[in-house]
């Protein structure tokens, strides 16, 4: 198992490299540049900006420099010039040589001029992650029990209610649910602040708006999977042995039924914590999703690259965890 994880981590580096290359090529092939605006910059102004951000080099060199800034560790002076061009994620002081070890510079933002990709992610990822975990909790707390109840009482009233609600949830896009929640609870009832970020009262509405649809998905997936497992031979055997229904369901069936659910949760988690553009816009949340989507429309190249790599990293780690959980849930699965 340990060797498996190590191997996957190494493969992750390769995958991230391919993602970065793909994204770089597509990003630079798209028309429009980071400095386009309604009042477009005169050529001489553009030239200065391109020189500042090394955009005047050949594309290949730009990519090599970009990857180099991230991958290659630097040993530098302890105090660097205060520039958005040298903001490293990892800075470790080495006392012996009185210099500093620096690693992973993801570059500056072209649009938020005093920000770097590192500083944007440091500011926004905790926000998005908090919201994402909230949404995931909503999804799990509502979805999984609803699915179990529906499966155990198949074709009963409870089944229909649980599934009916879940279809409602999955059919209402966040873009409708969000403003409706904001209007009802924020404007009319004034129970919660309509927008903003900071306290627990700010998390409730967006987490619900994001989590409700996912809870519906999880509920139905849990139900379907549990129904399938309940028909397995070993469950029948367990029942035949006269084990209590609660033990049969709780111990045997549920554990196996969680497999598809876990598969879904992995990437879902990665997506939720990297932020939702729509929810952040509707509820005025300073999260990563907003920066990611606007970086694409702004052609803010380093921010596009940085957020894509972050998403890639999280997806890969989440999927790795899913694979490990598979083995735990079903010991018959082996990775060679």
């Amino acid at each position, binding site marked *: 198992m340990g060797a498996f994880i190590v191997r996957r981590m190494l*493969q992750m580096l390769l*995958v991230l490299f*391919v*993602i970065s290359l793909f*994204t770089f090529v*597509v990003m630079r*092939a*798209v028309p*429009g540049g980071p400095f386009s605006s309604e009042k477009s910059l005169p050529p001489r102004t553009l030239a200065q900006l391109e020189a500042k951000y090394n955009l005047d080099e050949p594309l290949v060199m730009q990519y090599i420099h970009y990857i180099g800034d991230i991958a290659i560790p630097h040993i530098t002076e302890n105090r660097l010039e205060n520039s958005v061009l040298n903001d490293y994620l990892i800075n470790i002081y080495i006392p012996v040589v009185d210099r500093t070890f620096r690693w992973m510079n993801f570059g500056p933002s072209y649009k938020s001029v005093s920000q770097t990709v590192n500083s944007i992610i440091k500011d926004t990822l905790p926000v998005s992650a908090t919201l994402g975990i909230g949404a995931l909790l909503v999804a799990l707390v509502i979805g999984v029990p609803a699915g179990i109840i529906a499966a155990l009482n*198949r*074709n*009963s009233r409870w089944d229909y209610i649980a*599934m009916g609600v879940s*279809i*409602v949830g*999955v*059919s209402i*896009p*966040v*873009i*409708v649910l969000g*403003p409706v929640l904001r*209007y009802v609870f924020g*404007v009319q009832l004034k129970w919660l602040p309509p927008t903003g970020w900071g306290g627990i009262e700010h998390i409730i509405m967006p987490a619900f708006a994001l989590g409700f*649809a996912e809870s*519906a*998905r999880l509920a*139905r*997936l849990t139900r*379907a*999977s549990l*129904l*399938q497992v309940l*028909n397995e031979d070993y469950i*029948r055997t367990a029942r035949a042995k006269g084990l209590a229904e609660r033990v049969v369901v709780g111990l045997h069936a549920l554990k196996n039924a969680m*497999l*598809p659910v*876990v*598969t*879904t949760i*992995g*990437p879902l988690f990665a997506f939720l914590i990297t932020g939702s*553009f*729509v929810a952040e816009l509707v509820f005025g949340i300073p999260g990563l999703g907003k920066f*990611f*989507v606007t970086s*694409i*429309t702004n052609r803010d190249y380093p921010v*596009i690259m940085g957020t*894509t790599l972050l998403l*890639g990293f999280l*997806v*890969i780690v989440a*999927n790795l965890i*899913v694979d490990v959980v*598979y083995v735990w849930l*079903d010991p*018959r*699965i082996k990775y*060679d």
Partner: protein
Amino acid sequence: MTSNLKRSTAAAAIPGLNAETKPESLWRSSVQRLTRNRSAVVGLAIILLTILVAVFAPQLAPMDYKTQVLSDANTAPRWVTQVFPVMRPADDGGYVKINETYLLGADRLGRDLFSRIIYGTRVSLMVAFVGPLVALIVGLTLGLVSGYVGGWVDNVIMRFTDIMYAFPTLLLVILLMSFFRSSLGNVEPGTFAFQVGELDRASGGMLFIFIGVGLTSWMQTARLTRGQVLFVREQEYITAARAIGSPTWPILTRHILPNILGPIVVAETLTIPRYISFEAFLSFIGLGVNPPTPSWGAMISEGAGAISTYPNQAIFPALALFLVMFSFNFLGDGLRDALDPRMRGIE
């Protein structure tokens, strides 16, 4: 239909082996079981009806979907204002002009909402079919191979899936669109790019939505399928089938596929609104269908901006979406039950 009792009396035959001796009957009995499931039949009926609506939209719609009567913009019939109390009628100190010509009201440009919903069925149904189709063709195949063959093949396929997961699809859609929407670019007639652009225009701008949906749809299916295969692969009847030397392909299609389809079909039907939301999101950022072509996603995302003033403009298309979703889910459940070999003989 409390099935606990019936399930315990079900035949204890090993389903996989059963299926191998009489392979055709598996699918035929599936169809029989599906048609016996009342809610699934209702779902199927509604979907077929929706398809008919899409096909015969010009005959069914009371008005043209693109004719604007600017002076009628945002008007609504009285019953709508009664359903949505926010919409106080103008003759009652409010702001909504009453106009009974439009069944569900008129949109912000004075176009009939009802007719636009009817025409919008076309784009939305296409999206609802294209997404799962790509997901099943690409995702299911890759997942099956990956999970069953394992080893380095599994590894390569799954890492590719990881790459596509993380890749910003939005960027690719923008690129393709700016490249192919040729009437604005420098594309010569007769070239490939020009023809793709023409195709897009002929479809009212749907082509790139399909590409976007297709690109994002299959990864989850692939991973889910692989997970299911990993689980089923180690079951006794599969090991048995392998032990007696059955070739790979029949094992995949006869033993594994029927046993894993349930959660996958359910997951796919549940993902349909995500495709439609993606279409709405593309419209939201300006990469959707060309106006005035209506689509539910675009109508919902446009209406959402006015939800506290004219809720009918977002809620009615959302209701249409809800109805179709409901049908797809009923059908999905029915399919799941019908395709599950272990459910045979239960009904």
